[in-house]
């Protein structure tokens, strides 16, 4: 890619010595018409994508950062440029952990961290288990693979609303099994309000998220050369050893990306808690996205909501950078 940066004629004609210049020019001659015809074509091809990314992602992001420095309440929705500047007031409000708003944000942040840790960990674990167990061909493998992908294919709201029904206190399946059939609880428990809500949220999130891990890992497993296993089994390695010594190590590069993607999606997840709990999530399952949404649209305070969003983005950027730094270093180290 870098060797063929010939679109810019400037340095090629000026910097190079004249003795090699003629030879180089002759060699490139036939390509010149190509290059002229290429002209702006790549840029033209990219134009729609660039414009849309600008309109939907980049400009709103900049606007969001600007908004976080303004006192943007419902009075200024239709004319937000008239909202007064407030400097860092919105940020001060968001991180003042002694005041109610800051305290609630901090709590929501902790809840999100705990939720993300378990949801990503379990989804990844199930994905690895299923991918490894389905690597070898056997009867029913195709059917199982199809079944495992069903949660990925179902629309989030249809799946989560079904889970919400299962978690109902009086007519749900979960309490029917735990209370009526197994007798594990004295009273039918509440799952969607109160302390248990975080468990319900993790279960639903894992159910919804693990097939993606499975899909990625399954694709990665297909690239492991079969000869590796044949050689290992000739050397007397059993199947468990093959899994430990060949399969799992060769998943490392995929895992690096997969865990990061799962982390970002889970940490930002809005759909699952929103459909499961409705607009006001219980305190124990008050994920950060829902929290910001509520602080913005229920109280119509967009300035503070934007400040919280910007803080969230900064946090994600730092985590991603640190994660990539350490995992890349680890990979280089193991290769050396």
């Amino acid at each position, binding site marked *: 890619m870098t060797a063929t*940066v010939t679109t810019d004629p400037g340095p090629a004609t000026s910097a190079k010595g004249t003795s090699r210049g003629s030879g180089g020019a002759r060699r490139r001659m036939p390509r010149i018409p190509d290059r002229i015809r290429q002209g702006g074509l790549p840029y033209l*091809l990219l134009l729609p994508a660039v414009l849309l990314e600008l309109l939907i992602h980049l400009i709103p992001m900049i606007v969001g950062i600007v908004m976080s420095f303004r006192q943007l309440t419902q009075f200024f929705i239709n004319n937000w440029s008239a909202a007064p500047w407030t400097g860092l007031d919105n940020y001060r409000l968001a991180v003042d952990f002694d005041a109610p708003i800051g305290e609630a944000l901090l709590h929501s942040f902790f809840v999100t961290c705990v939720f993300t840790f378990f949801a990503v960990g379990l989804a990844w674990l199930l994905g690895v288990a299923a991918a490894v167990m389905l690597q*070898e061909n056997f009867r029913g493998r195709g059917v199982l693979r199809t079944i495992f992908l*069903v949660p990925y294919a179902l629309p989030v709201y249809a799946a989560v609303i079904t889970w919400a029904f*299962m978690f109902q206190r009086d*007519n749900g399946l979960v309490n029917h099994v735990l209370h009526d059939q197994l007798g594990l609880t004295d009273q039918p428990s509440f799952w969607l309000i109160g302390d248990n809500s975080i468990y319900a949220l993790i279960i639903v999130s894992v159910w919804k998220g693990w097939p993606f891990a499975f899909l990625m890992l399954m694709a990665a497993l297909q690239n492991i050369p079969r000869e590796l296993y044949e050689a290992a089994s000739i050397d007397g390695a059993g199947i468990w050893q093959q899994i430990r010594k060949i399969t799992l190590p060769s998943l490392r590069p995929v895992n690096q990306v997969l865990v990061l993607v799962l982390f970002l999606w889970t940490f930002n997840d809005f759909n699952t808690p929103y459909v499961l709990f409705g607009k006001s999530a219980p305190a124990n399952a008050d994920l950060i996205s829902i929290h910001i949404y509520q602080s913005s649209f229920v109280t119509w305070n967009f300035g503070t909501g934007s400040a919280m969003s910007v803080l969230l983005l900064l946090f994600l950027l730092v985590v991603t950078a640190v994660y990539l730094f350490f995992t890349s270093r680890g990979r280089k180290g193991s290769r050396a």
Partner: protein
Amino acid sequence: MPSRAARSPMAAPQSFLWTRRVVLTLLAGFVLLPVYVMISSSLKPLQEVSGKFQWIPHGLTVQPYFDIWETVPLGRYFVNSLIVAGSATVLSVVIAVFSAYAVSRYSFRGKRVFTVTVLSTQMFPGILFLLPLFLIFVNIGNSTGLALYGSRGGLILTYLTFSLPFSIWMLIGYFDSIPRDLDEAAMVDGCGPIRALFRVVVPAAVPGIVAVSVYAFMTAWGEVLFASVMTNDETRTLAVGLQGYSTLNDVYWNQVMAASLVVSVPVVVGFLLLQRYLVAGLTAGAVK
């Protein structure tokens, strides 16, 4: 596909076979449990889903499947979702094909900036640009009369950018795997670059394009956050409309389940039929 999948030529030990049976059975049970609840509850009368949960339905009825269209304007939501997801898919795939072709076949300044920027928009929390986008759409509407807020058009534009990064990334991998000689030969024969793209590259990349289309459609069909803010009664999509079955006092759970099933069928069937391509597309991307 089976050529590389089979692992060891020697017979697996019993410990492995049993672990596999147990793990896979538990996973299948976990995955299918809600599907079973959805199907069985959609066939029960209201008093049965309002009382204690029953594993086996007693008063089997298909009435909920008729009622769902009356209780809420499900038909209208359905049409809205179809229009929004369909348009977003077509536009997203076309734009992704152009972008991926440029990145895969040309070297130009800013190529790396483009791919990195597009991919990194994937990590932005939706909530970060929801509020500004909401305001931008409202203000564009106020100043130009172009109704983006509350309209299907605004939602289509938004959704197509959601699937764009992944689609571009996946199609670059696909296009890279198609030999350049093919489109160069077409250009020697007098095709322009655009005709070479449509006559040579696109036909060779059909599996990748199918995979990307499925992904784009699923993304748009299932999105909740923006749909809940950016639509009004007229343009409401299924993602929000499905919540209309709960009133203050009562939830028609049998109808909720029936409606969930009905709205899931198009995507699930499409996905399961085309999953091969998605796996193949992911593999092509992973090879890079």
